[in-house]
């Protein structure tokens, strides 16, 4: 052959249809492949016994369906687990499994590193290294030992989902397709810092929930925390969201990491409530997990509670997120950065 063998894992039904046709399979061959890949978790074409052997041979010469498992796992006292997966260029991405009662949330990464440079983010300190393919995103779900107990998936790990939209949309299609993983889009939330054109495409093309990283309602202050504010100001993000109706089927939430003395005053709470007026939404207040050399510090618990009460008093559905995995480098990007530093140190 000589040609590179490509991974078929992560392919949508449409792509599988093209592959099936090239392999000489009938029209339903795409659904057979999807069934083996995503429902029966096949690790090789030899498993696919309802596909003719000649087609399996043809496929195995051109494609692989196996995927790498996690190279490392760390478990918190609170049950949270962080999995490290190898990624392109020698980097690593993190997936976090967060059990809580009957609910278990899987937090996925979409890029190795990130380009957005938010002041409070550890992933940004790695710089951008690569986009994850749809298969690499989905592999964080497929290879998770706790996969069958996952109730919710959030795209809130490393990287900006809207900066890797094509692969994120393909991964969502596979997660939600009844011919693949068959998850309900109401179980999936995708986060963004507000890249408006991509966000609008996401809203057009999926029914998954959306989470917006707000972190300050004031544009000058948000600009210091999140450089994206220069190009896509929050007021434009909100204007784009206001054009849509937000019912019970689809939710928009606003993520608000609380920094002591920076964005946690009553003035901030009043402004958050004011700018969200007319948008059916919820606000999640998130304790800041400090990262090395940061000028930011977490808000005290009582400050967070006062902020929460102020928002609730103004009619905003608000929750304070629990800190999870504090003993295992909870801040997104910490674990992968440490592993990257360790591996590079060994190489030198």
């Amino acid at each position: 052959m000589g040609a590179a063998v490509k991974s078929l894992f992560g392919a949508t039904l449409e792509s599988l249809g093209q592959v099936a046709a090239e392999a000489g399979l009938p029209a339903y061959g795409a659904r057979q492949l999807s069934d083996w890949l995503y429902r029966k978790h096949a690790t090789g074409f030899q498993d696919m016994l309802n596909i003719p052997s000649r087609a399996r041979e043809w496929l195995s010469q051109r494609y692989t369906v196996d995927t790498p498992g996690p190279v490392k796992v760390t478990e918190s006292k609170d049950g949270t687990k962080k999995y490290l997966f190898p990624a392109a260029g020698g980097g690593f991405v993190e997936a976090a499994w967060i059990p809580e009662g009957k609910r278990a949330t899987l937090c996925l990464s979409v890029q190795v590193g990130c380009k957005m440079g938010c002041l409070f983010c550890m992933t940004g300190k790695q710089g951008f290294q690569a986009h994850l393919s749809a298969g690499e995103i989905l592999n964080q779900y497929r290879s998770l030992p706790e996969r069958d107990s996952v109730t919710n998936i959030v795209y809130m790990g490393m990287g900006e989902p809207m900066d890797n939209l094509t692969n994120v949309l393909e991964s969502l299609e596979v997660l939600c397709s009844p011919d693949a993983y068959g998850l309900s889009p109401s179980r999936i939330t995708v986060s963004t810092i507000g890249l408006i054109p991509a966000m609008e495409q996401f809203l057009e093309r999926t029914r998954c929930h959306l989470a917006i990283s707000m972190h300050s309602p004031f544009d000058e202050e948000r600009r210091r925390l999140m450089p994206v504010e220069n190009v896509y100001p929050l007021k434009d993000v909100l204007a784009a969201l206001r054009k849509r109706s937000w019912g019970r089927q689809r939710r928009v939430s606003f993520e608000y990491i609380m920094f002591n003395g920076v964005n946690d005053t009553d003035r901030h709470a009043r402004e958050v409530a004011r700018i969200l007026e007319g948008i059916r939404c919820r606000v999640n207040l998130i304790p800041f997990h400090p990262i090395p050399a940061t000028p930011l510090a977490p808000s005290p618990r009582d400050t967070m509670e006062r902020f929460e009460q102020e928002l609730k008093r103004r009619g905003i559905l608000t929750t304070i997120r629990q800190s999870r995995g504090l003993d295992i480098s909870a801040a997104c990007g910490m674990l992968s950065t440490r592993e990257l530093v360790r591996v590079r140190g060994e190489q030198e």
Partner: protein
Amino acid sequence: MSSRSPVPAAERPGESLRLIEVKVAENQEIAPGIFRVAFPRPWDFFPGQTIALSTDPSIPARYYSIASGCHDPVVEILYDLVPEGLLTPRMAGLGAGDTLLSSEPFGAFLDGDGASLWIAAGTGVAPFASMARSGMVEDKTLVQGSRTLAGLYLRGYFSSVLGARYVPCCSTESAAGVFSGRSTAWISSAALPDAERVLLCGGSRMVVDARDALIARGVPFERVISEIYF
């Protein structure tokens, strides 16, 4: 003396992404893989603002900082040729008289009166070129980083208008008057000028590293404004 143009035609990227046809006046490679394209100025803008460019409605527009002054007759953009990209190989093939699609200007990476420290790498020097060419040179210090001397675009111009307040940094080649090392090394070791604000522009790695170095030197993060090319 800082100078600002009249209110720009568009402030919101969502609205500004309506693309209009403009005619290329000039398109030339100014350093290996780095191009400068110019077209007659169809609107007013603030120095530091951005436009979206494409060559064809079927190709997604990408954003570029304006490098020309707000009173110049042409709009000038610097861009990296990305051989595997959709847009820049096409842009690189354009000549005078060819059509380019441009949005109106938008964005808020703006400076004001008073002392500022500007830090740039690569084509991230464009907004500072625009500011300087618009007359914003008083009390402005520019630190320009590059791996190569050829990558210090507009070095002669910045030297002439900023004098000793222009600090070129080169990490792989040496030359008289050029700091040997990365711009972050200069930030970590030099006496930083008193500045009301620090503006950073370039790729995410440089911006994040420079911001960390500034904070380590005691610059309050509230004074640091970053524009990241992504």
